[in-house]
């Protein structure tokens, strides 16, 4: 564990500490704003990480991500406005508590549970990371190809209504990843003589368009308003009984989140819904659920943050993103020249050490920022959307142009913003599109390697066969659940 201690030592420089503080602050701020979730906050600040070292960029993105998670819970409780989907369950019990005048206690429990969940997940990342990455050294092209297909299948399942739409979106993403030069043969593909397309489609511009601009546009269409409920906030500590009720609930939530977050396709929001349904059945004060159960808040928040952090386990150990947000983080790493995968726990272990240390510090900062400043964050959520929308659009444009000073990137951003808006109406699966675009080139590389080795060799690769079997199972499960949802 020397690498982890070295990580903490390397983190102790003014640059990294400021980035940690800034990311947690900005993440929380964006997280409390109506209509902007963690995806949008990462997309919005994604381009600014280009000026940072690989470790600092990862610390910044991590800080923004779980800062947004922390922020979402405050507005859910005080204003009944979940900043993101994962905070919906927090609002179910948190807001009634605020109405009863116990909002401060609920926020304290939520923040402490989030902190606990995040730290537990970080511990599992530090301890399990080495073991999983050792296993990953046994992986060859077949295993990686199967794993990436598995990830894409899971992303396809995130779409609404039909798995076919998810697969089509992923296929389109894979096709978009082919635009530009083929690295092996140096032949241009889908460029049609346009020099602007030679370097391919800029992932950042696409992500900013889909997650940043389109969310703002949809916010304008939905006439997103800040809602002030008039609830006054004053920091108060929870009672001993509230603590006693919350501790086991937070442990359950953290364990569910830590495990669930590692699985491809399982987003923190799905972990929170699962945790809420379990805790509702097993909680000590079952009758209070929906009317202000502190256990519900504790479990859900612990699960939310635990899942957010544990999503980094498959990304850093196997190089496989489990959600579209992790795919965005993966692309930042690749742009920075850090290839996520087993080398993160061998040759690049110094970066991993700093990153894990940065995440831990970021969690502590979020705790410090949120506990006494919850009242201030609730005020931030009251900012009018008619002011926020143009400012966010301006920041998105600024973020996209600073990367390459390219107008083509801006047009890519606009086109994908339009796709993002239309996607909401047609059921087009944007997570699968992003996953396809980011994994597309790697998937092609492993596919071609498999062809050269010979597909018959797949039969003697037990790990790859197990992954393929799991993939088939998950596709069937998704198909059935979608069919059931349609019937209902």
């Amino acid at each position, binding site marked *: 564990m020397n690498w982890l201690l070295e990580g903490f030592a390397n983190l102790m420089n003014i640059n990294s500490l400021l980035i940690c503080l800034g990311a947690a602050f900005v993440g929380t701020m964006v997280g409390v704003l109506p209509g902007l979730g963690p995806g949008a906050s990462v997309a919005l600040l994604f381009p600014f990480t280009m000026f940072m070292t690989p470790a600092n960029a990862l610390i910044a993105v991590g800080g923004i991500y779980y800062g947004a998670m922390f922020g979402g819970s405050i507005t859910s409780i005080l204003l009944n406005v979940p900043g993101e989907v994962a905070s919906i369950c927090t609002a179910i019990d948190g807001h009634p508590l605020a109405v009863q005048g116990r909002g401060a206690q609920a926020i304290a429990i939520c923040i402490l549970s989030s902190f606990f969940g995040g730290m537990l997940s970080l511990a599992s990342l530090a301890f399990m990371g080495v073991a999983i990455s050792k296993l990953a050294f046994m992986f060859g092209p077949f295993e990686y190809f199967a794993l990436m297909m598995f990830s894409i299948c899971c992303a396809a399942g995130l779409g609404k209504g039909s798995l076919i*739409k998810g697969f089509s979106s992923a296929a389109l993403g894979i096709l978009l990843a082919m635009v530009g030069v083929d690295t092996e*043969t140096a032949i241009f593909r889908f460029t049609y003589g346009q020099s602007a397309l030679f370097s391919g489609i800029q992932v950042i511009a696409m992500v900013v368009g889909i997650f940043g601009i389109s969310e703002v546009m949809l916010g304008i269409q939905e*006439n997103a308003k800040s809602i002030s409920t008039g609830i006054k906030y004053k920091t108060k500590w929870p009672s001993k009984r509230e603590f006693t009720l919350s501790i086991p609930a937070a442990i359950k939530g953290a364990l569910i989140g830590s495990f669930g977050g590692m699985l491809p396709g399982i987003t923190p929001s799905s972990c929170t819904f699962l945790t809420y349904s379990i805790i509702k059945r097993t909680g000590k004060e079952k009758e209070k659920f929906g009317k202000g159960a502190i256990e519900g808040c504790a479990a859900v928040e612990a699960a939310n943050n635990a899942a957010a952090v544990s999503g980094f386990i498959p990304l850093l150990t196997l190089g496989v993103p489990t959600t579209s947000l992790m795919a965005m983080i993966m692309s930042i790493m690749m742009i920075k020249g850090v290839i996520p995968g087993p080398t993160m726990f061998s040759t690049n272990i110094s970066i991993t050490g700093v990153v894990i240390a940065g995440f831990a510090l970021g969690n502590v900062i979020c705790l410090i920022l949120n506990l006494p400043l919850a009242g201030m964050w609730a005020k931030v959520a009251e900012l009018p959307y*008619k002011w926020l929308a*143009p400012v966010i*659009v301006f920041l998105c444009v600024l973020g996209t142009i600073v990367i390459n000073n390219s107008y083509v990137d801006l047009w890519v951003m606009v086109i994908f913003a*339009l796709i993002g808006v239309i996607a909401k109406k047609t059921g087009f699966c944007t997570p699968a599109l992003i996953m396809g675009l980011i994994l597309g080139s790697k998937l092609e590389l492993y596919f071609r390697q498999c062809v*050269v080795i010979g597909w018959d060799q797949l039969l003697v690769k037990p790990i790859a066969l197990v992954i393929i079997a799991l993939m088939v199972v998950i596709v069937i499960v998704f198909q059935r659940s979608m069919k059931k949802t349609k019937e209902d």
Partner: protein
Amino acid sequence: MDKGKKDHVISTLGIVLVSFGLPVLYLVTGIMALLEARRIQAKLQVEKFFAGPSGYMSIIGVVLLLLFIPEIIEGMKKYKKNLQKYAEKQAISKASEETEAEKERRINTNRMWIVFLMLTGYIVIMKPLGFFTSSIAFLITSMFYLGNKWLTVLITVSVVAVFLYFCPNFGITLPKGFLGI
């Protein structure tokens, strides 16, 4: 064209786009992938087709074409359903006035598309005018359009202008226009 007829054309076009937009996109991209794969194969003459730069591409092309079939079937069902819904809505709206919620929704949708157009205009004017001028123009027009007070606009634009002025000091270079800013 009178307003009623214009609304009818726009609504029908919207239904067609929502129902058939995606299948058509898959069909077009699938065909494009196959044509591109054919061009590359003719140029490189790779021995092992699937190990080359066009093999994987043609697989994705075929997948898109295969996925087009269920999508177009679903699109047809959706088209019929949406047309029926539209006809029902028309019948109701003829009998009664547009509800407040519907009116607000329509206004907000129009507002969204106008802001989108403003964004497009922002990028178009950026090349000749530069980032500074176009950003200020975009912020002023969009903020006024969305109903912000002039003092809010003034403060925001001033803060952004100061920020952009000092951007080069942070190592951020932004495109300049013919005015030199």
